[in-house]
């Protein structure tokens, strides 16, 4: 029974992955752009899901880390350096800044941390906008080259989409491993009850900082893909609303669920596109949809699924119990 369910789940996963590879083959340029954007945003949202969903720390700065990654990639690759070098710089930089930004999390909890990260987010935006010598300010950086991976140039949309998808795959596997490792369990303990976690001998200080730093580094990875995706960046996309959007993705998809960010990013990136036929109303409808969903299920879409599955399971279990009981009574 259990093995069957496992196989069914594996088959479903394989089907989805195959679909993501095969279906876009004859997509046009714009469709591939949107799908690549979905992959990139999913990576950023996964980072935030680690910080928020697993370690329970509210961050409103994930957009700023995407910005840092994007600027690192844009500045370095336009200077002729490889994207891998930019990726390394972005990850180290975001990890370090995330670690430092996590310090307030040690002193204060919950909404106060959200406020510190909110302030950081706006500060980062000001730096992107005002430090012309580094970021070219409001004029932005254009002609960002796309990398060559294993000898394949990704200038065309399809190869670049596969690069984004591949990166998403790698990050997913790493994340899957991380949340099942002792670290992942420690993060969960931190979210559920920090004081109890501390008394059980978990170094909550270190794990809080770690959750923050790893989440931020994933934001940086997303950023290094974002820059070659759009091939032009300016400060505007990395303002506070990106951080708020990413937070919404995580909550709408289902914070603390592994596949939450995938669904959340899908809704945030694709739903506005599907609603585009409504013209000026589409963001209004999107906002209304998010509010409606959160009123119906505050734990997001996967929260609904979880509830349905739990109900079905308990029904199945009670049916089994009933069968066993009747069999027991009939047997004498």
């Amino acid at each position, binding site marked *: 029974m259990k093995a069957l369910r496992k196989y069914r789940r594996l088959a479903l996963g394989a089907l989805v992955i195959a679909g993501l590879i095969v279906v876009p083959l004859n997509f046009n340029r714009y469709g591939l752009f949107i799908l690549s954007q979905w992959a990139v945003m999913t990576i950023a949202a996964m980072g935030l899901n680690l910080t928020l969903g697993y370690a329970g720390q509210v961050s409103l700065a994930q957009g700023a880390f995407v910005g840092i990654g994007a600027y690192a990639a844009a500045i370095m690759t336009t200077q002729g350096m490889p994207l891998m070098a930019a990726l390394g710089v972005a990850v180290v930089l975001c990890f370090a800044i995330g670690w430092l930004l996590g310090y307030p999390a040690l002193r204060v909890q919950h909404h106060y941390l959200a406020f510190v990260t909110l302030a950081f987010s706006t500060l980062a935006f000001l730096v992107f906008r*005002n430090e012309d010598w580094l970021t070219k300010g409001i004029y932005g950086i254009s002609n960002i080259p796309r990398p060559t991976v294993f000898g394949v140039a990704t200038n065309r949309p399809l190869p670049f989409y596969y690069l984004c998808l591949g990166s998403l795959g790698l990050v997913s596997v790493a994340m899957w491993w991380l949340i099942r490792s002792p670290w992942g369990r420690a993060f969960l303990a931190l979210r559920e009850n920090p004081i109890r976690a501390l008394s059980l001998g978990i170094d909550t200080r270190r794990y809080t900082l770690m959750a923050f730093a790893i989440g931020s580094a994933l934001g940086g990875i997303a950023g290094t893909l974002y820059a070659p995706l759009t091939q032009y960046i300016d400060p505007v996309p990395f303002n506070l609303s990106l951080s*708020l959007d990413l937070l919404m993705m995580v909550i709408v998809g289902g914070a603390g669920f592994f596949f939450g960010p995938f669904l959340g990013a899908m809704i945030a990136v694709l739903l506005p596109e599907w609603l585009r036929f409504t013209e*000026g109303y589409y963001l*209004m409808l999107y906002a209304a949809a998010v509010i409606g969903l959160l*009123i119906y299920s505050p734990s997001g879409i996967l929260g609904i699924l979880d509830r349905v599955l739990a109900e079905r399971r308990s029904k199945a279990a009670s049916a089994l119990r009933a069968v066993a009981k009747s069999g027991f009574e009939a047997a004498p």
Partner: protein
Amino acid sequence: MSNLLDLLVAGLATGAIYAIVAVGFTLLWQTSQTINFAQGEFVMLPAFLMLAAMHAGAPFWLAILIGILLSLVLLGLGFKMLLVDPMLRHGVLPLAIATMALAIGIREAVKQFFSAEASPFPSVVPAGDVAIFGRMVSLQSLGVLALAILAVVGLTAFLNRTSIGHQMQAAAQNPTVARIIGVPVERMILLTFLINAFLVALASLLITPIYLAKFSSGEVLGQAAFIAAIVGGFNQVRGAIAGGLLIGVVDNLAAAYVSTQYRAAVPLILLIVIILFRPQGILGRAEERTV
């Protein structure tokens, strides 16, 4: 030195408006754990409601009345019944996210149904300058400051001197005990939402003539009120007032003496420093953590 006085008066005037918005913000937090990320949009919307009333042919005073009434219904009653009530039991975070979505919704609705352009807005205070100690000070700044101080003093008097004010405070501090001693807690919470709606409508009336009516102006305003509330003390009305005034003055002085590019950074750095060294805010009480 010569324009220091101007800067101070202008800073206090905008600061007083921030204070009004921040007070509403802290009231919502105290009575119903609502972190309202749409508070800035709440300030932006009433000005457009008033403009709409004026387009329909109402004189300015009637438009103001209609605007305040509509914002009481929409931003007070509607916000509480349709969004906060169904979500409150799910905790702070989903509700905060829902208000973020609400902010997007309000912004887009105003952009779609009114205009994406900035519109001028008539001032309740006559324009011109007035001489104080031989210096010319903008009448508008003084008028805004006076009205804002009036509102804040009125509100504090209401909260501290009247029976209903005491009941509201009781409902905010300890709803269970308040209910036991016969305070109609539900009605008091509704009242705070109505007060917040009135305060944002007032702030809208005062600030829109200065910064024009624009669908996107809520972001800046909301953030300023937010910072003011935290810097002053998230759980104190007088903290929010002090925070608002401080942020207004610091913002104006920073624009003049630091750099126009980084003026917005100064209040943020102030915010981070306050949270690191005095997280309960300048005038706030420490919140206790529970195991």
